[in-house]
């Protein structure tokens, strides 16, 4: 026989994979021999090899065969290379044996799952849903609550703000901050900053940018330095220092074309020229408290640090402090020190600082404190869901174990050890758990993307949420745990098969009865968990309903809002008044617009100006008890545009002018609080402290005039749907023309259709005025309850999945019970029992499980009610109506799940049933 050489690469791979020496050589030799034999047989046209003839064809055919066999051999041998030339020593051999056994079990498991595709599909789906949902929620919890902030040493960063006499959090006043900085020893660097939406003008399109005004030591406190240029210094804080700006990397690339010569260029922000002195590194993000998206740039304190607004110790202008702890100090000790300093300041400056205290927290905690309860509750809910999924799978595996008892008994009779069998089943259940987990990761990735899209803009640290290594590790651990814990049960049960007994088919095998009891117990657990999720979903639905039915105090439909900022220096108060007058008359002339007005603060969004005040005809309370109200300058036509009702007196009209006597309109709550039972019209109030002058004592000095109440209007939910109505005082815009206002436009048509026209109206008046936050009032309303809405959606989805799993599980157990009791049912029917009797029997048995589960579930839900209360509004966590509805729903579904197999049971042919033995 003419010999040749088989493919050299395949041979090389074989040599690497096979054992060294004679053992490997013999196998390689066999393959070469067969390759040659096939080639020759092909050439000879042997009938055992069909296909192409000819030398090339023969060679190609045998080469294909050789490659195929080589790869299969390499796959088997590659991982267990031995270097000895003799048959292996015992230790290595036993490792090889157990690995062989493992591979065998694995292959057997894959084959047996492939043989029952619907069972496998159900288990995989259940696991994928459970593991996917929990991995997605865990990713959110991880990114938002657990991961440290992406800053150096984030645990050493402290957040501090002040509190008013009532204990509400307020911002930090500039002079107080300066004193903290000088006196406090706990900080390496204590910085102050606040968010500002600024207008960037000078190019063809004015735009709004998200800026943060920061003190010079801010980047030192954060321990991040600009990638290009320099950071701010204390010199940039000095009053009147040249305005400078540091841009973020994203802004530099997006708006400045990543120009390397950017340093020294100028930008016009709010009408003031700022010089660019630095660019922050890629990936840096300032912690976000307010803006839904990362900041664009940072501006220095110099332009504002000398203004009367800031230097007045009693003014709290929206700034917050962030400090880096000095070595040896903790958050608690720093907090104590600041409290001591605040107490000292209270003594030194009783006029402005009475009752003003300090509040500190870890920066990371401060960022996420609002959302922590929601996230943890969702984590608990998804944990329930995962548990339900696992219990369901365990149930299915037990049922499968029960139906395989015959097969397993045969194997046991043929000599398979008990441990070997248990191993087999464990490998099988781990296999399908890991497969389910892998699918679950795919589900999680999709679900997480959806959650991030749905999440309210204001969700803190949402950009830190991703499906990362930690989340994948969670998914792996969850799947493995499912497989081992809930597969072990059926494994050890089934492996304890007493060979002879199980070989006899029939009822009353003790094993079958035990597994049935176990399944019923697991089902009770499932039902209890499902009920808890249903209760949560029900309460969230009630909450959302309550939220959407709150009377906000305005008519929100067909109302468009947008913000403008007259920041430029040329907009003196007089020019602002003229501007607003022009703006409103042009807006009202736009076809489709019914009415238009401007206001400093938009309802629901929150008041931008809160101030203490005194009233003329009442004794002045002590400083700590001075009332505080939301003061809102509004144009004429505001109340009509918003649909706010006049209760007494009159609304603002042409009577109000810059030189006319100062007036104010108040809301019902303020009227009731300050003048209970009296007519407030004609009464007078004044902003500020009792000693604040009511006329200018010297140029530029702060003063607050007495204002006469001319009207009482209905309440408005100024600070959000869920917060209580504040005291509200409206000022005529002509007497208090603010720089930054929100426009409100009542339309007869779809508000979105008029946006372009409104933009052009503003552009005609001033081409350098960008509009910001253009949305309808309905959108503002929706955004304010977005968090509750998303939570509700998630809860409802979990509850539906849980209910489906539990009812399918119940159906399975009841159906199985019917099969087991076929003989008994046949006997009963042969003895004259009618269909109703049989039906009742089966349904009662099934419902008993559901009822027990429901009772346990209700107890569980009531016990955990404390944790969910913070997410609810307008409904208690133990609301009886909700619980009644939820229990009824569950029992109704359970009845249906029992009813189907029960109905089938009534169609059992007694003669067939009696024969089934």
């Amino acid at each position, binding site marked *: 026989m003419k010999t040749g050489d088989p493919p050299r690469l395949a041979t090389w791979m074989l040599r690497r994979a096979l054992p060294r020496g004679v053992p490997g*050589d013999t196998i390689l030799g066999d393959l070469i021999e067969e390759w040659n034999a096939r080639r020759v047989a092909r050439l000879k046209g042997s009938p055992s090899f069909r296909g192409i003839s000819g030398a090339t064809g023969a060679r190609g055919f045998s080469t294909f065969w050789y490659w195929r066999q080589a790869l299969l051999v390499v796959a088997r041998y590659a991982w267990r290379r031995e270097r000895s030339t003799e048959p292996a020593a015992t230790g290595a051999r*036993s490792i090889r044996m157990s690995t062989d056994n493992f591979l065998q079990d694995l292959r057997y498991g894959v084959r047996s799952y492939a043989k029952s595709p619907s069972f496998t599909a159900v288990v995989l789906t259940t696991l994928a849903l459970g593991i996917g949902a929990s991995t997605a929620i865990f990713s959110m919890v991880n990114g938002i609550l657990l991961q440290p902030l992406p800053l150096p040493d984030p645990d050493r960063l402290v957040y501090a703000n002040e509190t008013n006499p009532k204990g509400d959090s307020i911002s930090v006043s500039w002079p107080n901050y300066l004193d903290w900085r000088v006196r406090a020893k706990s900080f390496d660097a204590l910085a102050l900053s606040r968010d500002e939406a600024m207008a960037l003008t000078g190019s063809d399109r004015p735009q709004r940018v998200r800026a943060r005004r920061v003190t010079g030591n801010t980047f030192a406190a954060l321990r991040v330095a600009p990638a290009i240029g320099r950071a701010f210094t204390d010199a940039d804080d000095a009053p009147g220092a040249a305005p400078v700006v540091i841009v973020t990397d994203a802004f530099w690339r997006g708006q400045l074309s990543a120009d390397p010569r950017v340093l020294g260029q100028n930008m016009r922000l709010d009408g003031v020229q700022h010089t660019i002195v630095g660019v922050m590194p890629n990936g840096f993000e300032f912690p976000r408290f307010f803006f839904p998206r990362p900041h664009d740039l940072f501006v220095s304190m110099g332009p504002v640090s000398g203004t009367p607004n800031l230097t007045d110790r009693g003014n709290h202008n929206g700034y917050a402090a962030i400090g880096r702890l000095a070595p040896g100090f903790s958050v608690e000790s720093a907090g104590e020190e600041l409290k001591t300093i605040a107490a000292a300041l209270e003594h030194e400056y009783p006029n402005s600082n009475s009752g003003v205290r300090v509040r500190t927290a870890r920066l990371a905690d401060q960022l996420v404190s609002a959302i922590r309860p929601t996230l943890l509750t969702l984590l608990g809910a998804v944990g329930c869901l995962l548990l339900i999924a696992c219990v369901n799978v365990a149930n299915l595996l037990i049922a499968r174990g029960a139906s395989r008892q015959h097969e397993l008994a045969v194997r046991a009779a043929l*000599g398979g050890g008990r441990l070997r069998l248990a191993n087999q089943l464990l490998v099988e259940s781990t296999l399908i758990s890991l497969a389910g987990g892998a699918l679950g990761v795919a589900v999680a990735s999709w679900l997480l993307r959806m959650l991030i899209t749905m999440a309210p803009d204001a969700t803190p640290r949402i950009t830190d949420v991703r499906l990362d290594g930690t989340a994948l590790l969670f998914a792996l651990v969850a799947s493995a745990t499912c497989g081992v814990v809930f597969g072990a049960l059926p494994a050890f049960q089934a492996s304890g098969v007493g060979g002879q007994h199980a070989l006899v088919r029939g009822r009353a095998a003790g094993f079958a009865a035990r597994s049935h009891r176990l399944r019923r117990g697991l089902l009770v657990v499932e039902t209890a968990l499902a009920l808890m999720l249903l209760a949560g979903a029900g309460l969230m639905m009630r909450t959302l309903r309550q939220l959407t039915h709150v009377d906000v105090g305005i008519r929100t439909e067909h109302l468009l809002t947008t913000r403008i900022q007259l920041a430029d220096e040329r907009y003196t108060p007089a020019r602002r008044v003229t501007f607003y007058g022009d703006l409103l008359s042009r807006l009202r002339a736009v076809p489709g617009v019914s009415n238009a007005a401007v206001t400093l603060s938009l309802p629901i969004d929150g008041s931008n100006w809160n101030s203490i005040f005194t009233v003329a005809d009442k004794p002045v309370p002590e400083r700590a008890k001075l009332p505080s109200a939301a003061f809102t300058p509004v144009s004429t036509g505001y109340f009509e545009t918003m649909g706010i009702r006049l209760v007494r007196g009159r609304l603002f009209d042409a009577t109000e002018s810059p030189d006319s006597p100062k007036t104010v309109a108040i809301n019902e709550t303020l009227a009731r609080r300050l003048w209970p039972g009296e007519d407030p019209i004609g009464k007078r109030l004044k902003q500020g402290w009792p000693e604040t002058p009511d006329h200018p004592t010297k140029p530029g000095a702060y003063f607050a005039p007495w204002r006469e109440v001319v009207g009482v209007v209905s309440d408005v939910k100024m600070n959000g749907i869920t917060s209580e109505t504040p005291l509200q005082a409206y000022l005529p815009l002509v007497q208090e023309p603010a720089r930054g206002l929100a426009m409100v436009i009542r339309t007869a048509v779809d508000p979105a259709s008029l946006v372009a026209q409104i933009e052009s109206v503003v552009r005609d008046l001033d081409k350098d005025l960008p509009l910001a936050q253009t949305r309808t009032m309905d959108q503002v309303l929706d955004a304010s309850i977005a968090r509750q809405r998303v939570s509700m959606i998630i809860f409802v989805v979990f509850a539906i999945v849980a209910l489906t799993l539990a009812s399918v599980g119940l159906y399975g157990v009841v159906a199985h019970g019917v099969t087991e009791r076929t003989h008994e049912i046949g006997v009963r029917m042969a003895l004259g029992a009618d269909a109703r009797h049989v039906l009742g029997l089966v349904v009662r048995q099934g419902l008993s499980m559901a009822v027990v589960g429901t009772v346990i579930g209700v107890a569980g839900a009531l016990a955990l009610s404390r944790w969910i209360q913070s997410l609810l509004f307008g409904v208690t966590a133990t609301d009886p109506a909700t619980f009644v509805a939820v229990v009824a729903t569950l029992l109704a579904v359970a009845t249906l799940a029992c009813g189907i197999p029960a109905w089938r049971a009534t169609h059992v042919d007694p003669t067939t049933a009696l024969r089934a033995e």
Partner: protein
Amino acid sequence: MAPAYLGEFEQLLLLAILRLDANAYGVELARELETRAGRTVSRGHLYTSLDRLEDKDLLRWKPTPGTPERGGLPRRLYSVTPAGIGALRASRDTLRRMWRGLEDVLKEPTS
């Protein structure tokens, strides 16, 4: 010691070795399985199964000189050990026990 448990394929392998006797080389084993038992088996599966049987002491092999058709590489000549015979015997007896009484059910239909 109780005889080891034999899977179906393992039984076929041992029986093939016994049939081939002095010709029980790897290539011939594969051919025997194919023609007599109708089983096409990948070489990876074949050799690892033989290795496993060797680990369980149910067969042994000795090297014999090679031929030019195999690049001069040696061959393995397999033989079944007494333990292997015992295992085969046990498997046969078990199957006989299982078959007993079922001749009627399993006999070929005559019509």
